[in-house]
């Protein structure tokens, strides 16, 4: 999953980026409104954490302009915490609203819920045959046994699982799994996929040669 964090307080931005990277997200950052809007429009993020008070273009304006083109889930971050502000935020197209100061655990949970809802999964638990993905605990179990995955492997599997039944192109995977600073070689993706197949079963991820990867949805392809 790939996040954009737009926040002008550098220390807050740094800690947000660090903690979300720890959670396995690919994270891009922006320190002001212009940069934030540019990045939000350029890439297809899975979610955006957007501070309201920003130099240049403020959070409301970024949200308004973003909504013209994209439906990216947006979590607004603000120091203003009156009901009026919340209503304005939600009515303005924000998907969630967190007031400062906040707990990182809560922020992470809200981000997970936001991404889950956007991909059409109301629950944080996805079952694919004998393999069970728990997004809250960030664990994958096979036949009831936890499978040890690296952060990248988990992120790849989570993305494919949340988009099961859809063909996920390699480009989309690059977009959503790696942030702008990652210099990952393309063949690394194949390494991660083959590792996943080794750990979870060869049949779990299908390769559409020349297109990308897919986890079959039992509903559409029994």
């Amino acid at each position, binding site marked *: 999953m790939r996040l954009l964090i737009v926040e*002008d*307080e*550098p*220390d*807050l931005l*740094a*800690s*947000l980026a*660090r*903690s979300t990277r*720890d959670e396995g997200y690919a994270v891009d950052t922006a320190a002001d409104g212009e940069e934030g809007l540019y990045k939000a429009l350029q890439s297809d993020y899975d979610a955006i954490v957007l501070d309201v*008070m*920003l*130099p*240049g273009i*403020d959070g409301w304006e970024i949200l308004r302009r973003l909504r013209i083109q994209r439906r990216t889930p947006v979590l607004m971050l603000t*120091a*203003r*915490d*009156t009901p009026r502000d919340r209503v304005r935020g939600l009515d303005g197209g924000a998907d969630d609203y967190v*007031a*400062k*100061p*906040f*707990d*990182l*655990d809560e922020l992470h949970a809200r981000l997970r819920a936001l991404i889950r809802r956007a991909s059409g999964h109301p629950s944080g638990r996805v079952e694919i045959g004998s393999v069970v993905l728990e997004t809250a605990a960030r664990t994958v179990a096979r036949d009831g046994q936890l499978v040890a995955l690296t952060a990248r492997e988990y992120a790849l599997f989570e993305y494919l699982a949340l988009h099961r039944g859809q063909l996920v192109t390699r480009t989309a995977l690059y977009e959503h799994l790696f942030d702008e600073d990652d210099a990952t070689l393309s063949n690394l993706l194949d390494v991660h996929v083959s590792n996943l197949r080794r750990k979870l079963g060869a049949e779990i991820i299908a390769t559409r040669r020349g297109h990308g990867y897919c986890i079959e949805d039992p509903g559409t392809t029994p």
Partner: protein
Amino acid sequence: MNIHSLRWRLQLWHGLLLVLVLAGFGVTAYELQRAESLRRIDQQLDRRVNEVLATLREGQPRPRPDDDDPGPEGPRDPPPDRRPMPPAGFRLSQRFAMRFGTNSQTGAYYALWARDGRRIGGSDNVPGELDRPTEARPGASAIRRTRGMLRETVIVTPPGEAIVVGQSMATDLEELGRFGGWLGIAGAGVLTLSLAGGWWVVTRAIRPIEAIGATAERIATGRLAERIPVAETDSELGKLAGVLNETFARLEAAFQRQERFTADASHELRTPVSVIISQAQSALARERPAGEYRDALAACERAAQRMRRLIESLLELARLDAGATTRKETVDLARLAEETIALVRPLAEMRGLQWTVQLAPATCVGDPGQLGQVLANLLANAIDYNRDGGGIRVTVGPGGDGGVAVEVADTGIGVGPEALPHLFERFYRADPSRTGSKGRAGLGLAIVKTIVEAHGGTIEVASEPGKGTKFTLRLRGS
């Protein structure tokens, strides 16, 4: 119904007064009417007395031949159709006799007694219980008396004949009773109308009071935006409502300022607290290299320092608001400026700012610590909102009217005209997002203004976006 309410007290007083007036008027009218009808009756009786007297003087009337009365002596049993004693040898002339009725209930009657006390005459309708009057002296003026429903005039001639002429007052009293009844009805009507009118007027008059009360009650429950509806601005209550509305507006404004101040203060604290929490939580989430811990701690320290500055500013403002006694010392602003410039010079050098300083001795009376803070805040602004390589001009010297003036001008980004009036407001920032890295909460100029005003001085600002800003501080000289 509350007997102590203004409306009821007014009504009660007004009703009481009206009852008294109406009763006084009614009783007087009734008494006048009664006296008038008595006078009328007495006049009639007087005329009849005169007629009887005249007949007496004309001589002893002879009994008519057809009279069945045998003589003056010896009363005999009356015939069954005549109750009163027939007059003994006295008859009014026919003309007069007609004036006396035959019924004591309606008509007039008379009775006549001889000197020796014998009853010698009378009309047919003399009430049976009539005796010779004893209260009159011979030759004295007539005596008027009332016996039950009867009004009588008694006169005794100088020789000693007693005459009683009387008349029933029944019809007059009945009429008087009707008159009294009408008076009562009219009085009650007037009272009712007047009370109803009074009620209406009082209700209308106190309606604004009720509106004021209701509004004040709503305001007391926290709805500060409520105002009293003012319909008539010229009445006393209308003026009162206007004054109260102004008071409410001022109260609300003060309340809003306080509320905004609290909201702003908490808002300013939220960001550094967020930094501390998120830095600490993300650092503690897992084992990290020592460098990351150092970074996290450094960020926490920066945030805590920012909070400390904010708290210091808030305390400073609170102290100033509470009217903390300012020390009174002779302060040379030129020296104070020199010292302050020396303090901030390293900050200015970091941005490559050029100083232009013109200092002439300018002494005033005040608190050197507070005045030093004013200069420090102004200089910090001039440094922070300057452009790299710009300039700061500080001029201290005598101002007009024996005062002293300090000018601090920069070549910085300036402030737009829409922001200028708010520049000295607490937590106001020309650019609302220009927080964070600089750690400015927007209290510096508010503190400056509060201190300057506590010293009886003024501070003005002129600015042009892109060119720079100039603060002019004026204080009384010493």
